């Protein structure tokens, strides 16, 4: 403030400012790098690390091996290579997190925009949100998976069935936070002058919403989405952990951990690898969300 002659800082584009703030957040950077490595490993890994084809007899002989050059993560009770299983399981875990988050975000944004923009829908939709918030979610998820598993599996097959059911169940029970955030944003946005201007030149509600309101709710939704991925991954692993998740031949990290529990006392590493993978993923996603929240908030940015 004392030196008024100092050159004004060069104006930077919004995207650049956000990135600068984001990269100042050490945790967020750590999260981005760790998550990047994990996603890369899970996507490319299964092509680089092809487990040996073992006959059943060979596999049984090689069961319960510790980490070695041949099996970096050891083998499980059926002689399956743990590294290959971890990589495949990671794909499913991350896919579950992403797809469930997408469902929750799309549904939550839809409800939030409708409730915020159309006053007549506000009451009923928000009561619906409150009701969902009061539901005991974990018990209901367990019941849903337990009761509908066989039916869905008989329609689309056991693997896809488990995936569809779990992703849908998680998505449909985690949209409420997004809906509330979006509604709050829309309520303030729709009173802005530019929305009034758009309305006065005769723009229809659909156009106002898509063109003027939605782009402005992107940043809170992005933060909610990041945190949603973490939540979905944890919820899925909770279901798998309680034995109501994915079938053992189509594992997720949660399922691997559940399988390893029986051998925990003798082969603790079989629990530690998947648990570490889940925790690292969730930790980095949470850090990214934290950093994004700071970076996308113009009041904090530049401080």
């Amino acid at each position, binding site marked *: 403030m004392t030196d008024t002659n100092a050159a004004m800082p060069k104006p930077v584009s919004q995207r650049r400012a956000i990135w600068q703030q984001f990269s100042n957040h050490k*945790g967020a950077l750590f999260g981005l790098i760790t998550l990047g490595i994990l996603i890369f490993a899970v996507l490319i890994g299964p092509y680089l690390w092809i487990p040996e084809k073992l006959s059943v007899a060979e596999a049984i002989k090689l069961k319960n091996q510790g980490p070695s050059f041949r099996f970096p993560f050891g083998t499980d009770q059926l002689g399956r290579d743990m590294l290959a299983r971890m990589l495949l399981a990671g794909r499913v875990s991350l896919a579950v997190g992403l797809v469930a988050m997408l469902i929750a975000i799309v549904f939550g944004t839809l409800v939030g925009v409708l409730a915020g923009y159309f006053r007549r829908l506000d009451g009923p939709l928000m*009561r619906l949100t*409150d*009701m969902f*918030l*009061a*539901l*005991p979610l*974990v*018990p*209901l998820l*367990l*019941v*849903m998976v*337990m*009761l*509908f*598993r*066989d*039916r869905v599996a008989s329609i689309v097959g056991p693997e896809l069935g488990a995936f569809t059911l779990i992703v849908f169940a998680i998505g449909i029970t985690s949209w409420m936070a997004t809906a509330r955030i979006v509604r709050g944003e829309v309520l303030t946005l729709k009173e802005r002058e530019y929305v009034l201007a758009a309305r006065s030149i005769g723009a229809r509600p659909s156009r106002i919403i898509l063109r003027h309101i939605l782009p402005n709710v992107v940043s809170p939704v992005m933060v909610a989405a990041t945190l949603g991925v*973490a939540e979905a991954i*944890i919820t899925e*692993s*909770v279901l798998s*952990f*309680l034995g*109501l998740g994915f079938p053992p031949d189509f594992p997720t990290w949660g399922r691997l*951990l559940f399988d390893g*529990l029986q051998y*925990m*006392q003798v082969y*603790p590493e079989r*629990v*530690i690898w998947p*648990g*570490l993978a*889940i*925790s690292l993923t*969730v*930790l980095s996603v*949470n*850090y990214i969300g*934290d950093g994004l929240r700071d970076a996308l908030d113009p009041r904090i940015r530049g401080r």
Partner: protein
Amino acid sequence: MLTFTLRRLLLAIPTLLVISLVIFLLVDLAPGSPLSDIPLTVPPDVRKKMIEALGADQPVIFRYVLWLRQFFWVEPAYLIDGWFGTTWAGDEQRILSWQSRSPVFTIIGQRLPQTLIVIGTAYLVGILIAVPIGIYSAYRQYSFFDQAGTLFAMIGFSVPTFFSGTLFIIIFAVWLGWFPTKYDTQLVVTDWASFLEQMRQMALPVMTLGLANAAAISRYMRSSMLDNMGMDYVRTARAKGMTERTVILKHVLRNSLIPVVTVIALGIPSIFGGAIITENLFGVNGIGAALIGAIHASDLPMVQTLAFIFAVLIVLFNLIADVLYGLLDPRIRYD
């Protein structure tokens, strides 16, 4: 305040009715009913009798209303009878578990103490850890302690309890052998030795859940303290020459605890329901374990009743949190 409480109570009734209907229908209309699992070798007339005995041949609406009546009228009547020796309930039919044919509420009554002792202690421990951490992190913002506290909270958020619990078992029970891996439900505390045994077996579940709770609550505590530290009344207190200790612990802490207390109240339903994982992992024979057992055994009345109890608790503690907020903070008036 009273009118607000009454209005919220009245509003809670339709919410709970809708929730009860959702829970009832979701469980009842699902394809995996235990009645479809009766072996084909059972003759048709026996099968019919079995269905009748379970009351599953009645229309859905009829069973729903009957269940509601049992839940809200018959069961409380039995409870009052049990306490005061009255005969209000007469011999009305209670909600029976399909697994054990005994009343669901009796089973819940047997299981609840285990849950409350273990999970309740964990919650208390969590609060007791979290509040000092939150206070000190806020007082020395951006210090090393604060950074460490942030890291601790972030890890506590991110490491799911089933993994931290397993890690604790591996480290403290398998490698070090300090604590037992499983919780022994049969243990009765009679003397000092059995009390110590009880403490030892509670250590791991309490640690697992307590750390997870502490992570969340310490964050709330810290941000609430930070909000208040910059207030004018804090400057006034310092200007009057009060010691730093009085300023922080009397003035700032009391005002900062208001939102934290409501957060703590909002978390209480999870003591009853959210600890399913911890109970399963450590073999605590509580409500969460009962729910999982009932789900695996397709015991519909038990699942419906437990899920609905959780919902009632959530609605109730939301209400309590709102009322508490108004009571504790005179600046907030709902009328």
